[in-house]
């Protein structure tokens, strides 16, 4: 299975850990590290989960903030490698503890090598230290390790589970339109009478995370970000989990599969939720029928996907099964042995499309579903391609209309971009 063709500039475990901690709605993250590790994380946290209206650096002129509202840093320098960073950490924790429900301290790789005893500075009820995020680990590992370490420390055991409640695990603030995605999943679940207890490290409060055990089960949204968390919760808090076999719920087939899996687990009537998908299918039929009458498209147009496996699988089904498009190449951001990755492999092979499991390089699709960087890079070789951003990094489009990548709304948006993109291409 081909993996990321920009692997060397893909976010790593440090980013995953910071993104996890920045996903706590009433938390703050201190980076015990150099400024070089700070700016990207400060920028991405602030843009993905804004907590202030101003981005004027003059408003964030305090020394640890370097003009950004999020992820203050101890700006480690050579002196700190000799004498330690404790004093800088203490100044920041004094400022933040009390203002936030939980203050996380994340060591950069360099800081972790110092093996400084920062635990002695920790108020164990309100602070949390991630001593090392790993050195060349993936973002998925960094995210899950951080979440598991947090839950190990703070999740309350022995809580009485509330029927018809779930936690969403494996979704982060780094996911494109993450808030819209959560709303879409909430909407689907509510049609089955199911309530979301906590969205783990993606918008829920510290208190909600402590009460993660209140839910009846966990639903994995993106397997690469959530499988290990769900396994840990099953092992430590005896919570079962649902890992949707068709990946994240986008595309009608995958959404219906998601509904059936959840309804089966809870033994509830899925029809109201399935009817809403049917209504959406009906709506799209009208659009596609007229579009297809004039152009014959999207049938026969080609596509490539370069993404996380949990998105690649449902999007493949959407474009191949639902729209009749032809896969040029499918490549994944991780070669982890996930069920969604195996699902892609086995499905393509069963359809005689095994050759499509290859890197994007050298393919010339009409439509490319990927992140902004990959789309830009691919356009250098294939100027006609219609690139559809489904993940970060982004080209920086300012979204006003609340959007989603998942759910009915996500399906509509992706379909709309495919149809209009193909008119430009053809």
């Amino acid at each position, binding site marked *: 299975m081909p993996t990321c063709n920009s692997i060397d500039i893909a976010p790593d475990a440090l980013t995953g850990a910071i993104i996890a901690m920045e996903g706590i709605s009433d938390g703050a993250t201190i980076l015990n590290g*150099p400024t070089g590790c700070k700016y990207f994380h400060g920028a991405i946290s602030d843009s993905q989960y804004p907590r202030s209206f101003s981005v004027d650096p003059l408003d964030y002129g305090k020394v640890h903030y370097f003009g950004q509202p999020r992820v203050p840093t101890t700006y480690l320098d050579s002196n700190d490698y000799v004498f330690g960073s404790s004093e800088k950490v203490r100044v920041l924790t004094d400022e933040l503890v009390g203002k936030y429900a939980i203050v996380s301290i994340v060591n950069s790789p360099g800081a972790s*090598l110092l093996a400084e005893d920062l635990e002695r500075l920790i108020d164990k009820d309100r602070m949390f230290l991630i001593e090392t995020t790993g050195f060349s680990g993936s973002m998925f590992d960094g995210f899950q390790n951080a979440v598991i370490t947090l839950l190990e420390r703070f999740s309350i055991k022995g809580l009485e589970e509330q029927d018809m409640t779930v936690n969403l695990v494996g979704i982060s603030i780094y996911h494109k339109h993450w808030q819209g995605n959560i709303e879409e999943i909430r909407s689907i679940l509510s049609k089955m009478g199911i309530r979301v207890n906590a969205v783990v490290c993606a918008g829920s409060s510290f208190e909600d995370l402590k009460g993660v055990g209140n839910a009846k089960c966990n639903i994995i949204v993106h397997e690469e970000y959530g499988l290990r968390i769900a396994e840990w919760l099953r092992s430590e808090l005896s919570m079962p989990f649902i890992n949707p076999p068709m990946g994240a719920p986008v595309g009608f087939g995958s959404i219906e599969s998601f509904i059936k899996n959840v309804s089966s687990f809870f033994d509830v009537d899925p029809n109201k939720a399935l009817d809403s998908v049917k209504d959406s299918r009906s709506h799209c039929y009208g659009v596609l029928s007229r579009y297809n009458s004039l152009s014959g498209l999207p049938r026969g147009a080609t596509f490539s996907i370069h993404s996380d496996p949990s998105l690649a699988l449902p999007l493949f089904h959407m474009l191949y099964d639902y729209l009749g498009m032809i896969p040029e190449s499918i490549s994944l951001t991780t070669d982890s042995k996930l069920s969604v990755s195996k699902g892609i492999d086995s499905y393509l092979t069963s359809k005689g499309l095994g050759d499509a499991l290859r890197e994007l390089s050298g393919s010339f699709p009409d439509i490319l579903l990927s992140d902004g960087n990959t789309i830009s890079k691919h356009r250098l070789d294939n100027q006609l391609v219609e690139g559809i951003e489904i993940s970060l990094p982004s080209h920086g489009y300012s979204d006003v209309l609340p959007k989603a990548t998942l759910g009915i709304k996500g399906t509509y948006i992706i379909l709309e971009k495919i149809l209009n993109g193909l008119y430009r291409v053809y």
Partner: protein
Amino acid sequence: MIDPHILSSDMSESVMIYGGSDNLEKAIEKATVDRPDCIFIVTTCASGIIGEDVLSVMENAKKKHDDIEFHLMNADGNISGDFMQGVIDSSIMVASEIVDWASIPEGRKVNLIGEKNIAMNHEHNFHFIKGILNALDLEVNCRFICNTTIDEIKGLNRAALNILAHRDYFGRALSDYFVNEHGLKFTKNPFPIGYNETVDLICELSKYFSADELAQPIISENRKRYEEYMSPLRGQLEGKRIMLVALSQSIDWIVETAKGLGMDIVKVGICDYSQEEGLASRYAHSLPLEMNYDPSKRKDDILDLEPDLVISNYSSVGLPNMASYSVIPLCPDIGFFTGVEMAYRWKNILSLPRTEGWKKDAYL
């Protein structure tokens, strides 16, 4: 810049204990596949802390691949300094190790030193300078270091004169190095912002290269255009009160535009910004100037001074709506018309109601 050719040696936990030479060798071998002219090896914090012997690995690679140049940047992540120190150290390493200092200046060649690779307008600014140089029958020899090649860098010493892109901390560090270590000659004027600075640079270049007959038509033609642009603005901006709060200490292009339009400069607050050389304004003596300006004073100063227009590098929320606000770029487009183009924006902004609708929704 979309997919930088950066390979990682993928240091893992075991590397921290047993060392990472093998990983580095593998990464170097991977990098040599496409036979680049040059491979740079840059060390991270972790590499520096564990004391990795990168130099030996590089020397071995040199022996194995004698058609490729290898250079080591011992940044050790942040141990050797911050972001800007890394940029400076790398540039100086490249200059000292790659430039052929035995070559001698030839003809009417000019180097451009210290362009800002990460500024969105660096190519726009380059094309303006190139146009001016070509009009003076001069040629760009090397852009150090921006969209250039190893061959261009090797031939850096062939230029007779060097122009600094920005006289900021980075630019000064580079020019100090080139002047003190290699005796290079620099123009007094960096890339010019606004009419006067552009004229100054053209005059300096034409004097140095004896190209006055080529320079005068450029200046006179653009003087005429400048006046044509400024003239209709005066009726609308004359007498307007303007307040400037800036991180940048290069403010003359703004001041000369405002003065040229008859505007009343009521305050110039220069914030403390480590990247700048210090205020070198030709108008300093005549300005209501406050150095090391505290941005938290903005609100009170606006209420007190009642400017029509407040311009600053960033717009902020929560400032009084009695004034209009406009933003000036930290890295402006260069050339004759930087200021006047900005003034057209001021005119447009002042023609609008003080506050637009969305700002009234802040209480929501």
